């Protein structure tokens, strides 16, 4: 199978089916675009303004010129008959109407916010004076965007794109070639499709482990403290003024005095998801990006905790530190994601200095999830800072795959063993400090990784 590299660099775009004109039209519109080192299409230089000769006119003119030259040089008059063919074709293709001088374009992109895998439709309307023979769009899709379909009308172009990767992207730019009615001259207009926000598809998750201590805020989790919930945690002697319907008759009979049910308080948990944006590691086997999987797992956690009316915040570390204080409500999910959508741009300007966590980003007693591939040593420093705040903490490890080693390369095999031993040592050191480390496998539900945490409540450290 032949094809061009796909924009995410994970493989190749399959060659279009020759029998499917729509697929060939998309392939043609993508033609001539250079794919950069990061697997992203590079837009061609800004097109020149004004009319210029089309390839049709250029080809026929070349053949005519060669014919005339051959006739002159050879001295055979009949060769002029061959030169007359492209010349006559050029003459009969001259445009019938005036070429447009003023061209305006209108862009509609819907929706501007979507999740990964959803479709974005872009409609471009071209208004002009004079006569136009045909529109010929050339598309440079934005990073994380795939062109699925292209429909070209007389003054309208419709693109159907699929958002493949989360982020704040431009859907792309479109260079529209306007041809005159004979197809002998063209003029190019560049159209920018603006920006869309692509939210990560949250990993499926339903379990919400909670810490031992919960803040005094009404919620759905039963806390060890006495309260007005529905979970019975014991009995206590009747105190004047308490509700009689709570009398526990078996205990009253046994003890000989009135005993009442004692209920647990129901509290909401404060949770913060910390994202490791120190680097983006591509799994050599599966091609998955550790940053993509980090975000999907974090989005799954955020959605699970928000669905149980807990408060959840986010902190991204690496490059610029971005954070959002814990909040609740379904709409808060989108605020969380929007606050960290641009972290991919931070990869270019990550420093080597020490990362300082903003104190207000980590509320006291909040459960901290650190989603990380454990590949950068600086994350250990961050973990120590979190641990120093006595917050209960869970490290969600995103697998980044082993580096590729060529068979027979003894040095590389030794380096791979050392690399694995280093990672094992990191996990061991974290476990020794009482930090729970769970491994999330991309494609699986987060509940599989979170389930062991439900056996007991998560303890915090000591200051």
């Amino acid at each position: 199978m032949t094809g061009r590299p796909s924009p995410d660099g994970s493989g190749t775009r399959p060659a279009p089916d020759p029998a499917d004109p729509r697929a060939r039209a998309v392939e043609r519109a993508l033609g001539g675009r250079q794919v950069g080192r990061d697997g992203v299409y590079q837009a061609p230089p800004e097109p020149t303004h004004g009319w210029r000769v089309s390839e049709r006119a250029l080809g026929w003119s070349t053949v005519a010129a060669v014919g005339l030259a051959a006739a002159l040089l050879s001295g055979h008059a009949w060769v002029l008959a061959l030169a007359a063919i492209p010349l006559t074709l050029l003459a009969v293709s001259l445009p019938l109407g005036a070429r447009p001088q003023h061209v305006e374009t209108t862009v509609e992109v819907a929706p501007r916010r979507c999740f990964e895998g959803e479709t974005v439709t872009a409609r471009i309307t071209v208004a002009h004076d004079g006569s136009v023979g045909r529109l010929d769009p050339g598309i440079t899709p934005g990073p994380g965007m795939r062109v699925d379909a292209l429909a070209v009308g007389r003054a309208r172009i419709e693109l159907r794109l699929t958002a493949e990767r989360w982020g704040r992207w431009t859907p792309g730019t479109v260079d529209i070639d306007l041809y005159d009615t004979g197809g002998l001259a063209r003029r190019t207009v560049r159209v920018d499709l603006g920006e869309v926000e692509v939210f990560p598809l949250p990993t499926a998750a339903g379990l919400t482990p909670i810490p031992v201590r919960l803040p005094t805020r009404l919620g759905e989790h039963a806390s060890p403290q006495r309260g007005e919930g529905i979970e019975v945690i014991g009995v206590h002697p009747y105190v004047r003024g308490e509700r009689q319907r709570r009398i526990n008759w078996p205990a009253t009979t046994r003890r000989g005095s009135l005993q009442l049910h004692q209920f647990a308080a129901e509290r909401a948990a404060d949770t913060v998801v910390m994202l490791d944006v120190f680097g983006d590691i591509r799994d050599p086997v599966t091609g998955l990006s550790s940053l993509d999987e980090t975000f999907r797992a974090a989005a799954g956690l955020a959605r699970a905790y928000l669905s149980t009316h807990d408060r959840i915040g986010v902190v991204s570390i690496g490059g610029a530190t971005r954070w959002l204080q814990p909040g609740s409500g379904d709409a808060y999910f989108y605020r969380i994601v929007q606050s960290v959508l641009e972290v991919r741009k931070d990869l270019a300007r990550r420093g080597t200095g020490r990362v300082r966590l903003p104190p207000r980003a980590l509320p006291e007693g909040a459960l901290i999830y650190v989603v990380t591939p454990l590949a950068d040593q600086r994350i250990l420093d961050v973990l120590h800072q979190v641990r120093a705040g006595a917050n209960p903490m869970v490290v969600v490890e995103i697998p980044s795959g082993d580096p590729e080693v060529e068979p027979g390369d003894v040095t590389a095999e030794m380096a791979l063993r050392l690399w694995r031993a280093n990672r094992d040592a990191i996990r061991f050191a974290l476990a020794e400090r009482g930090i729970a480390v769970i491994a999330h496998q991309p494609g699986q539900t987060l509940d599989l990784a979170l389930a062991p945490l439900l056996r007991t409540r998560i303890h915090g450290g000591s200051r």
Partner: protein
Amino acid sequence: MSPTVRGRRAAPLATRCVGTALVVAACDPPAALRGSSLQPALVVIAALLAWWASPMIDERPAQTSMRWPALAARRRGTVMAAASIAIAAVTDPPVWLAACVAVLLLAYLLLTDAWTTGVTAPARRPAPGPALVTAAASALVLLAAEAPLSHTPWARLAAALAVAATVTSLVLVLRRRGGGAPR
């Protein structure tokens, strides 16, 4: 499968056949067979090159590379058509073969015209008018070239008439069409 799709799938084979026939006809095969043993081999090589080069290149006019090999590969259809004219001028085939070359050249240029047969071209059938006008013009020039007037006193008159007809046709075409800026 719709007739349009079937037609477009069959187009590369037809284009290859017409392109190869054009180059072979331009090589004047009867003369090549009578010549040295090298000439038929050259015809075969030319035919093989034509088979490779003749399919239509239906790509957007995007600037990819300015290197000559890349440009020649991208515009190999045009190069092949121009080369066939040059070969025909060198081999100087008989009139019937020259007429065949003209017909094949017209067919090849029309078959490889992405404006009318490319993937983004309208689905309607191309109008036969331009092809008929072009064939008529080429036939007229061929007949005028082969007319036995070159060594007679009528030669200058015929040449003057041809020039006048050409200028008149150009003026008529440019005045009727034009395609300039709106006034």
